[in-house]
């Protein structure tokens, strides 16, 4: 069955149940029923039962490559990855139990719907896009990172079409405190807006032009003049630091104002032969802006990027979102799309791009399609022992087995917080604390491309932090009101307190119950060691330090 035109439906649901999300955390089962009924009634929701329009194309790709269709992920696997991918953290004990014990046939679809309406969904994607747009580091006072993040969150709350969000980001004007979107442009204006040029083409158009800053591209058709033609759109931009009197009447910096004016300016660049080149605004498709016009250049650029009939923007987003959920894109690196870089499963890629555009750039719909596909529903478990065959990696490329992905620093922080505050239902995210914690792993290169890296993913400093760090110490604290103390308290009076305690720790950390063998091993420790709190701490330490905890699977 082909599904066409998600547009109507997508518009219908927009902005519907934001309020419901806050309540929902406490009454998961209820929320599952409430938000999902609408989804279930709609034939276009494409549940995991095979109605997904991507599945026939995926199956065809698997058949042509001679690989077996994937085996479905267990509920435990699916639960954990859906929480991490959609709302950026693992489920807490109650959430995990609610999902695992429900027997409804379409509970996965309902879970996705619940998560898309969860208050943490817009927060998660706002965090992701803030990092992509301005990085994790401190960019100085002209860049209000928090304002950008808040602005993005509002866009995701309101389910705004992606091309409209992008148009606003590219063209935004005004105060960096009041219009968070302007911070994107403000963050990348130095060095003749070279960083703004390469980030805009990478993020929104999926094209890596940055090397053509200095020479023609070695692997595709981009020329040096293409880069500078795009760069010339970022002329006529005015940045003003505004001052205002503070509470004590003292005048000081208040905010930064971004505005545009028409200009005849052009970009100058050094050619490799030592000559100086000149470029006027020209979009990637070759369309030039007529010189001398009174047009605002960023507005003209925004219109071209956000063109509802364009291909590059929906393609770039479809690929990035697929990579977010699958661990790798159809094209990798995700922002290097073009004839020089052939995609995996091109028919699936084309179809997803087309449907996303036709849906009116509906991000939630894109997520529904991806998460209900057989590719996202695949297990990460490997069947046989023939793991040594060299062809395996190639087979994995076809999205027939779920890749293992390390958590981002943000996911790790929020997941540790979730695991250790399951007993505090009202606990919310502490983004300020998270940002501070993360800075210790952040390295900013301080060059004109604002490159940065995290000294984080899977390296020794990270294991040291997980093993011995302050946060782990806090997580394992058995003091009153701590998670572990609560686990012990609740187990009193249970039929078998030890079993309940062990089960709670597994659910909190790994979102699953222990296997019989694991439970036995843990119980033996509890029976033979005098300090049961010590054993619980050590077990929780091991669970939180394990590859199963830190890898999305």
């Amino acid at each position, binding site marked *: 069955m082909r599904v066409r035109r998600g547009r109507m439906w997508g518009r219908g649901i927009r902005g519907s149940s934001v309020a419901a999300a806050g309540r929902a955390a406490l009454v998961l089962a209820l929320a599952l029923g409430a938000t999902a009924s609408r989804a279930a009634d709609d034939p276009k929701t494409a549940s995991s039962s095979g109605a997904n329009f991507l599945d026939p194309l995926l199956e065809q790709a698997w058949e042509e490559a001679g690989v077996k269709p994937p085996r479905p992920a267990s509920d435990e696997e699916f639960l954990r990855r859906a929480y991490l991918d959609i709302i950026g953290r693992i489920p807490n004990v109650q959430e995990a139990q609610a999902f695992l014990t429900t027997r409804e046939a379409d509970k996965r679809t309902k879970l996705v719907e619940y998560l898309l309406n969860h208050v943490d969904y817009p927060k998660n994607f706002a965090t992701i896009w803030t990092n992509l747009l301005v990085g994790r580091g401190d960019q100085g006072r002209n860049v209000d990172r928090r304002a950008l993040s808040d602005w993005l969150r509002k866009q995701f709350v309101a389910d705004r079409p992606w091309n409209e969000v992008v148009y606003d980001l590219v063209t935004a004007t005004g105060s960096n405190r009041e219009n968070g979107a302007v911070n994107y442009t403000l963050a990348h204006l130095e060095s003749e807006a070279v960083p703004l040029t390469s980030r805009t083409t990478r993020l929104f158009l999926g094209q890596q032009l940055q090397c053509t800053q200095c020479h023609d591209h070695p692997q595709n058709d981009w020329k040096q003049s293409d880069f500078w033609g795009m760069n010339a759109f970022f002329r006529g931009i005015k940045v003003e630091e505004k001052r205002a009197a503070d509470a004590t009447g003292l005048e000081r910096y208040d905010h930064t104002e971004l505005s545009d004016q028409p200009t005849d300016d052009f970009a100058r660049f050094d050619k490799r032969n030592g000559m100086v080149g000149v470029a006027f605004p020209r979009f990637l498709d070759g369309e030039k802006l007529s010189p001398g016009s009174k047009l605002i250049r960023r507005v003209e650029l925004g219109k071209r990027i956000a063109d509802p009939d364009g291909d590059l923007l929906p393609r770039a987003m479809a690929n990035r979102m697929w990579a977010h959920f699958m661990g790798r894109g159809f094209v990798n690196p995700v922002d290097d799309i073009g004839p020089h870089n052939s995609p995996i499963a091109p028919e699936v890629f084309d179809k997803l791009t087309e449907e996303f555009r036709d849906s009116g750039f509906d991000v939630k719909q894109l997520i529904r399609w991806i998460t209900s596909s057989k590719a996202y529903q695949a297990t990460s478990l490997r069947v046989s022992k023939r793991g040594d065959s060299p062809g395996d990696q190639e087979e994995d490329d076809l999205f027939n087995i779920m890749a293992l992905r390390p958590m981002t620093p943000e996911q790790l922080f929020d997941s540790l917080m979730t695991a250790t505050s399951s007993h505090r239902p009202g606990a919310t995210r502490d983004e300020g604390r998270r940002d501070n914690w993360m800075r210790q792993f952040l390295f900013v290169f301080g*060059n004109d491309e604002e490159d940065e890296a995290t000294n984080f993913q899977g390296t020794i400093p990270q294991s040291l932090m997980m*093993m011995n760090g302050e946060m782990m110490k806090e997580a394992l604290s058995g003091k009153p009101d701590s998670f572990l103390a609560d686990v012990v308290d609740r187990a009193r009076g249970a039929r078998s307190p030890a079993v309940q305690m062990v089960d709670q720790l597994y659910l909190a950390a790994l979102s699953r119950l222990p296997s019989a063998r694991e439970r036995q091993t843990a119980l033996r420790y509890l029976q033979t060691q005098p300090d049961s709190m010590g054993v619980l701490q050590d077990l929780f*330490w091991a669970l939180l330090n394990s590859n199963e905890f830190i*890898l999305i699977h």
Partner: protein
Amino acid sequence: MSPFSPLSGGLGRRHFMRHMAATALGIPAFRFFSDLRANAAQARKNHRSCIVLWMSGGPSHLDIWDLKPDSEKNGGPFRPIATSAPGVMISEHMPKTAQQMHHLSVLRSLDSKEGNHERGTYLMHTGYVPNPTVVHPGWGSTCAFELGSQLDNFDLPHCVSINSPGVGAGFLGMSYTPFMVQNPNAPIANLQPPGDVDALRMNRRLQMLGQLEDQFIAQRRTPPAVDHKAVYGKTIRMMNSKYKEIFNLKTESEAVREAYGKHSFGSGCLMARRLVEQGVTYVEVSLGGWDTHADNFEALSTRLLPELDQGMSALVADLASRGLLDTTLIVWMGEFGRTPRINQNAGRDHWPRSWSVVVGGGGLKNGQVIGATDKDGVDVADRPIGVMDLIATMTKTMGIGLDTQYTTPRGRPLKVVDDGGKPIEELFG
């Protein structure tokens, strides 16, 4: 840009499994402690090391190693001075290093073609331009993989990057990724377990962890799962090693600390010496701030060159006096050079077309200048050197076979030294 980026993948699985024995993976969790008999010092014999001094941002080579006093438009204000190597002239702002030039050689004709920071960094570290189909290992990780992993019972990471993260291990996997020392003047964070966790409890934790790790690996058998355990193995070794004091510079005399300088670059150079002394294979020390699009000469003369000169000269002299210079290759480089043309802001821009790299130690025939640029520093005038020639030279110096080849995760062959790369003959006796 790492968020959202695809997984770096791993080695072909067969290749990968074969090398698992070389990692801590072979050590069951409960033996993590008993196995820690450190004899790194013994392993030092015949072991070769490399220290890369990485000038992040793109250093202005024409104001350091290849001065053009006769070029009216491009020369700049700095004057050349004579050095301990007959006929070799370098910048007046490098007086201490000038006294060590008989241990070093200047390659003045590098043509590297990448003028973007990220791409230049990748190219100079891997020898390859970024390619969508494979994530190349940094050359330092290749050394760790080829040489470091042959050291039995070695407690320290084989590949260390001081002041910056360096470039990752690509398909060689996380356990060959550089260990980053963020600040050489501060203790390594979280190296000690909390006070209430004694050896007995730590052992219990590791036993429990080992079971979880092994089960997950058995079910998934992919590099991220296996690497996680390998990195933990290395971490635990380091935590329990008597050599962890290596990262504490306070044990050095005040005179030595003063000689290197207490800024992060000088301290990094001192730490690099301490690490190679114990048999660490690859150490990179980073000095940032070279992206001098404006006020180039001011930044160089007041800040960058004094730090560089002090740290680099102390390192070379110290290695020489300890008899370590013949087995330690030194490479000074950045992602590219800077334009001969001086721009309207008294700065120089990115210039990969004709620039300088410095090598030294390593038992090479040093004290030479190899290659030349023309009068204005624009074109290579003599003996062009490609990035692969440099990689070939470094690889040969380390005693790694020039024909070393890997199979990428997609089953394609990849050479450490690509076909075009030839060692620079003039450097070999």
